[in-house]
């Protein structure tokens, strides 16, 4: 097998369809008598929904049906790690970010659905909007979810941090902040759904990165067995982590059951930006000690990850980030704490690197600052501290194979033709 494939050019199975425009992405699937959905979203980032007036929207010709929370009392919350996301926000319930769904408009055309959404009247009781995770962590801050704004706390300890700093000749302590990032897969969230009355099976043509988890989450939310949810994965127009979370899926299922007709839902790009996951913004406080010979002795990390209104993969992303606080560098004494915090921002979830990308900004900056202050070539400083076979990570994993960081640094220097810093 290896001789047949390794080192050979193998064509992607669907590449011919992709260059000729034949590949079917979710938005490319059409059915006769298909209806179009549009979601009415939150009107304020943190508020109680007091009134939802559908009457004008329902009278618009071409509107088939509008589903609100009152119509689906049996439907449960969903979410990748914690079931904290409502399918629709009901009267007296809270909207926690601008992406929360208030109603599903089902219409004969995209145009009518878009017009109808604008005719829905919403009244809210506004609450303090918490956009800063440091404010969310205040003792007197209003609670976004009832169990508190700190969703998860993770700790890390290796060696003796006090001893490590005592051994250091130089200690650098800095704070780093990273921003929200959208994955911007070129295709937005989209899908088509059909309900078969006879078998009770809902078929969804929709992108997902977690086929079976998505199926299970939809099933538990709707109170159906998994066998009743069939997901057909069309060609995916990019994902990068953004399509791990449920988006159009449950709304499509509900509309298909309600109308018994094929239904389609496509987000606008703005809607995708507002409603669907982001890379976590991190606040990282890093304190790093090194000897005057340029060896790291201690590293302390304090990490806050803003997971926005819902958990998504937040607790996993943020604590994984903390585990990588030293980057690929040997440090015998490490201590860390990571908080995953709710705010009223768009929720944050998985994105390429899964928390480690944010940390790289902090640890590589620390390495440069230390090297500069120690008067050591920053490449040499990295090389003499870099992982090798047998190194142990901050969470105690012994690296037994495939440790290429030193070779990578050397090759990067070589390719860049870098001769050292201009002093």
């Amino acid at each position: 097998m290896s001789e047949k494939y390794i080192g050979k050019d193998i064509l992607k199975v669907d590449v011919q369809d992709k260059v000729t425009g034949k590949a079917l992405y979710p938005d490319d699937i059409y059915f006769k008598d298909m209806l179009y959905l549009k979601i009415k979203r939150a009107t304020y980032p943190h508020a109680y929904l007091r009134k939802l007036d559908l009457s004008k929207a329902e009278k618009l010709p071409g509107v088939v049906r509008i589903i609100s929370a009152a119509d689906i009392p049996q439907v449960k919350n969903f979410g990748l790690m914690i079931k904290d996301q409502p399918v629709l926000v009901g009267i007296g319930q809270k909207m926690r970010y601008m992406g929360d769904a208030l109603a599903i408009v089902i219409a004969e055309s995209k145009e009518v659905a878009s017009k109808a959404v604008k005719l829905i009247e919403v009244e809210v009781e506004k609450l303090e909007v918490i956009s800063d995770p440091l404010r969310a962590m205040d003792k007197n801050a209003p609670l976004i979810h009832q169990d508190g704004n700190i969703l998860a706390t993770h700790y890390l300890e290796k060696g003796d941090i006090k001893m490590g700093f005592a051994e250091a000749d130089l200690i650098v302590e800095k704070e780093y902040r990273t921003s929200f990032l959208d994955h911007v897969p070129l295709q937005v969230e989209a899908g088509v759904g059909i309900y078969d009355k006879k078998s009770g099976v809902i078929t969804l043509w929709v992108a997902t990165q977690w086929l079976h988890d998505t199926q299970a989450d939809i099933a538990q939310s709707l109170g159906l067995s998994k066998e009743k949810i069939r997901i057909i994965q069309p060609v995916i127009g990019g994902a990068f982590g953004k399509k791990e979370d449920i988006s159009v899926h449950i709304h499509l299922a509900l509309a298909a059951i309600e109308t018994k007709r094929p239904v389609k839902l496509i987000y606008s790009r703005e809607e995708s930006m507002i409603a669907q996951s982001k890379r976590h913004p991190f606040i990282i406080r890093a304190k790093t000690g090194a000897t005057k010979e340029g060896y790291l002795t201690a590293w302390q990390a304090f990490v806050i990850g803003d997971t926005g209104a819902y958990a998504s993969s937040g607790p996993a992303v943020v604590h994984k980030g903390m585990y990588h606080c030293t980057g690929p560098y040997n440090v015998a004494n490490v201590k860390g704490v990571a908080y995953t915090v709710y705010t009223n921002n768009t929720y944050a979830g998985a994105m390429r690197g899964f928390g480690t990308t944010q940390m790289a900004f902090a640890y590589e900056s620390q390495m440069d600052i230390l090297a500069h202050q120690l008067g050591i070539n920053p490449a040499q400083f990295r090389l003499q501290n870099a992982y090798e076979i047998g190194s142990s990570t901050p969470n105690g994993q012994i690296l037994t194979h495939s440790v290429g960081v030193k070779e990578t640094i050397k090759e990067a220097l070589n390719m860049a033709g870098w001769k050292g810093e201009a002093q």
Partner: protein
Amino acid sequence: MTKLKIELMVNRKKRKIEITPSTRLIDLLRDDLQLTGTKEGCGKGECGACTVIMNGELVASCLVLAPQADGAVITTIEGLGSSDHLDPIQEAFIESGAVQCGFCTPGMILAARRLLEENPHPDEEEIKRGISGNLCRCTGYQKIIEAIKLSIARLSKSDSGKAK
């Protein structure tokens, strides 16, 4: 809603069609003519996924109202080559590994086609400028540029006919 009758040439076929005044060219192509190779990525003319060739020029079909295309000659990805007979640019994209998720690919190939019609021997900077209206989120562009370079050699050997 008022309907307008328009007539246009799409992929060398004459089409007569009734549309609403607010229909965009991309909707006409996708919803009415089932030419779903033209993709919508942003709806704002930023990403280039909906690129088609209209009267010899590249346009973002999400920014063109369908009535504006009355009398126009349009080439979409479906008009470039078929699975049996690929355009040399399509072949080069396959061979160079320039296709990942594929969502930008139709627009990217049409942009390359237009570039090479105007300038059959572009240098690397000209290639980059030629595809500067088309975003790709997967490849990092390097293999797309390599594919276009490969197309230059292929096209100078075989003349597969210009996009109409």
